[in-house]
């Protein structure tokens, strides 16, 4: 173990329904969505029209500003529908699978051993894997024209009920190693992988070569790559780093070994409303309908009102409420199913016990039962108010950042202050816990998102 970094701040939300290490089913989606909204900073230009045949790896969209950046279909079949929203905004491209899974041919394996940085870059761009690499600051698609200071990969996800990546990536060691070999040619700063102190010794990532392993100890958000970067080599003004997840790392390896655009992955289906939480093997963009039967949708009454079920692509902190008719996002390793909170609880705020509720505040008693898991729901547990209480966000943000001042700088649209107070170092997911604990119920991730958009606009 090189250098263990202990993070004391943070919180593991004790949510019921974590997935057991077992593949419940392997899904070959009949229909699959490619969502431009998954990619921050993408200005999509359609390359196909309804009815076109596609293979896995056929470009369906390109970025208008940077047409080298291609978004590709993960599946072979035909383009069934192009879904647009308000102002004709492109929402998703639905592709009907032909179940044959034919791949576009890539020449990547030829450059695996001796390819130059330029060759690897262009292989990643033309294969469609490029947009899965994000850059910091801001978490947008990496800019191929810039060399990053370093590349960071988090080897574990500490979010509530998130997939155990040691398990999910079990069969991908070789692919991940090939990915690292390629990526390490793209930067002089090296490829850095963060692992958790409790599991790192047994983690397959521990044995990866040509990557720098960093060990973190502490609760969520220790697994957030942004938090890890902050403690390994913080981002200062003018610097760029790249980040990617392990799925992308393995997909890069697959491209270089087999020459295929293969995004197959193992993701967790978890949450209090899943009958038997476990893993599934699937492609990103899968319809949640295909796992709808795993959800416990028997009608439940909470506090005298009937509550529904929420289907989330992603975890409960950063995921999208896509609904049972929606499709999974490309960066999500978890599908969470949980109860809605559309009930009215009489005098809830003054009840002394509320044993079904969780709080980090000691005005409740959940701290007495540290091992209890909760069947939480989506109720706001209060109304939105002005910022009143202080010192709460600080408890769950393990970074040398003054969160309240940063948020207020964003609300005031004060660019200098945002820059000075650390907007380069965080993206939405890093402050998700601040939003969870906020007694004023402020939408912190939304605030940060606005701040990042302001910065992108002003700095370009």
């Amino acid at each position: 173990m090189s250098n263990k970094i202990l993070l004391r701040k943070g919180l593991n939300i004790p949510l019921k329904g974590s997935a057991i290490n077992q593949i419940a089913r392997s899904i070959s989606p009949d229909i699959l969505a490619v969502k431009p909204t998954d990619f921050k900073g993408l200005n999509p230009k359609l390359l196909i029209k309804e009815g076109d045949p596609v293979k896995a790896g056929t470009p369906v969209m390109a970025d208008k500003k940077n047409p080298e950046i291609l978004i590709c279909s993960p599946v072979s079949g035909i383009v069934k529908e192009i879904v647009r929203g308000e102002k004709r905004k492109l929402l998703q491209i639905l592709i009907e699978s032909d179940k044959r899974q034919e791949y576009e041919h890539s020449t990547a394996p030829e450059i695996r051993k001796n390819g130059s940085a330029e060759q690897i870059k262009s292989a990643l761009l033309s294969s469609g894997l490029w947009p899965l690499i994000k850059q910091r600051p801001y978490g947008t698609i990496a800019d191929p024209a810039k060399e990053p200071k370093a590349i960071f990969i988090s080897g574990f996800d500490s979010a509530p009920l998130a997939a155990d990546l040691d398990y999910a990536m079990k069969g991908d060691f070789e692919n991940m190693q090939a990915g690292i070999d390629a990526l390490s040619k793209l930067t002089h700063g090296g490829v850095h992988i963060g692992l958790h102190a409790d599991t790192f010794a047994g983690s397959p990532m521990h044995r990866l070569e040509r990557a720098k392993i960093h060990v973190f100890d502490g609760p969520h958000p220790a697994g957030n790559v942004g938090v890890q970067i902050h403690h390994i080599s913080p981002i200062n003004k003018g610097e760029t780093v790249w980040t990617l997840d392990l799925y992308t790392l393995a997909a890069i390896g697959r491209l270089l070994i087999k020459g295929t655009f293969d995004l197959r992955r193992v993701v967790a289906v978890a949450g209090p409303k899943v009958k038997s939480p476990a893993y599934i093997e699937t492609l990103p963009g899968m319809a949640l309908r295909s796992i709808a039967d795993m959800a416990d949708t028997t009608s439940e009454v909470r506090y005298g009102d009937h509550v529904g079920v929420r289907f989330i692509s992603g975890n409960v902190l950063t995921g999208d409420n896509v609904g049972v008719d929606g499709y999974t996002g490309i960066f999500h390793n978890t599908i969470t199913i949980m109860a809605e909170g559309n009930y009215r609880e009489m005098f809830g705020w003054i009840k002394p016990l509320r044993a079904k509720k969780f709080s980090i505040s000691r005005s409740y008693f959940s701290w007495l039962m540290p091992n209890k898991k909760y069947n939480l729901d989506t109720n706001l547990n209060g109304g939105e108010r002005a910022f009143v209480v202080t010192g709460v966000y600080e408890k769950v943000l393990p970074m040398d950042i003054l969160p309240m001042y940063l948020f207020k700088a964003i609300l005031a649209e004060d660019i200098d202050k945002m820059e000075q107070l650390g907007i380069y170092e965080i993206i939405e997911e890093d402050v998700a816990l601040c939003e969870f604990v906020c007694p004023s119920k402020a939408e912190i991730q939304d605030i940060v998102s606005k701040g990042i958009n302001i910065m992108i606009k002003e700095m370009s």
Partner: protein
Amino acid sequence: MKVLKKLVDNIKPTFSKGGKLGFLHSTFDAFETFLFVPDHVTKKGVHIKDSIDLKRTMTMVILALMPALLFGMYNTGYQHNLSIGGDMTFWAMFWFGFLKVLPLIIVSYVVGLGIEFIAAQIRGHEVNEGYLVTGMLIPLIMPVDVPLWILSLSVIFAVIVGKEVFGGTGMNIWNPALLSRAFVFFAYPSQISGDKIWIEGLSSGQGIVDGFSGATPLAHAAAGEFDKMPSFMDMFIGFIPGSIGETSTLAILIGAVMLLWTGIASWKIMLSTFAGGILTGLLLNAVGPEGSYMSMPAINHLVMGGFAFGAVFMATDPVTGSQTERGKWIYGFLIGVMAILIRVFNPGYPEGMMLAILLLNTFAPFIDHFVVQSNIKRRLRRAAVK
């Protein structure tokens, strides 16, 4: 419960936008959310939220104020009994105090909440819970004989000038409750200083025992009459004249334990305020001539007057206090220092706590500014050394 829900559902359209009484929408909402935690669910961002909200936070503070309030009621009767040389029982004294204090609380809440509701209505906001605490604090830092009309005026001043002009809860610079007291202090000085006003009935001069003064320990100390001061134990438990809620350090400490246990008040501010007070007291002890105010045992400062009450319930107000964790240490410490300095060196007013907190409220953003700047500098240096 079901019946109530139905009733609320039935009258809700009347109070919603477009309804007959739609202009009372904020007021309706306040009552509805008082009865039921609303059925609002998370829309964007996180899907689950902690169960703490401002209602619960404020409720905890009010619960923490209860020991001080109950003792204050009892002490009102006790002091009155002492002044007339009566022989009231424990319950008679409590009941006497209860009847004297209750109107103050009712007036404070009715007037203050009335303004809050109107302000929320005008802004179209939901009603904020901040006044629930302020409304309890104000009577507790008033003398029991304060006329109700003065109390009303001070509440109006505190809520409008102290809070609403700055944009409402969360935006104010000074602690509204202290502002109300400052208002009475400067506008009606005779109502809040002197020896007669702290004990019910004393100012109207009804049947006082010969030689009974009614002066607070602070007044004795300021006058240099150290022999007349009550014992440390009496001051700690609270059998002394003073504002309703401030006399019993013991009762206040019970509240402090609740606030610290629940983590609602900052332990940093509380601790550093007491530290600032005692260290200043000790310093004065070291340099002060024998028999002077400066030489009074430093520990007495903490149990006299409003020091403990201010440190526990006023200085820790998160809105008007320092908002950075480091700033909280400095802010609290300086409150303690200033309070003692004003007490000892300002002959005009024996109590320094109110002015010390208001002063540091003013400087809290200034303190925070330096903490924020040091964070910024540290971050910049990080870029340079790399």
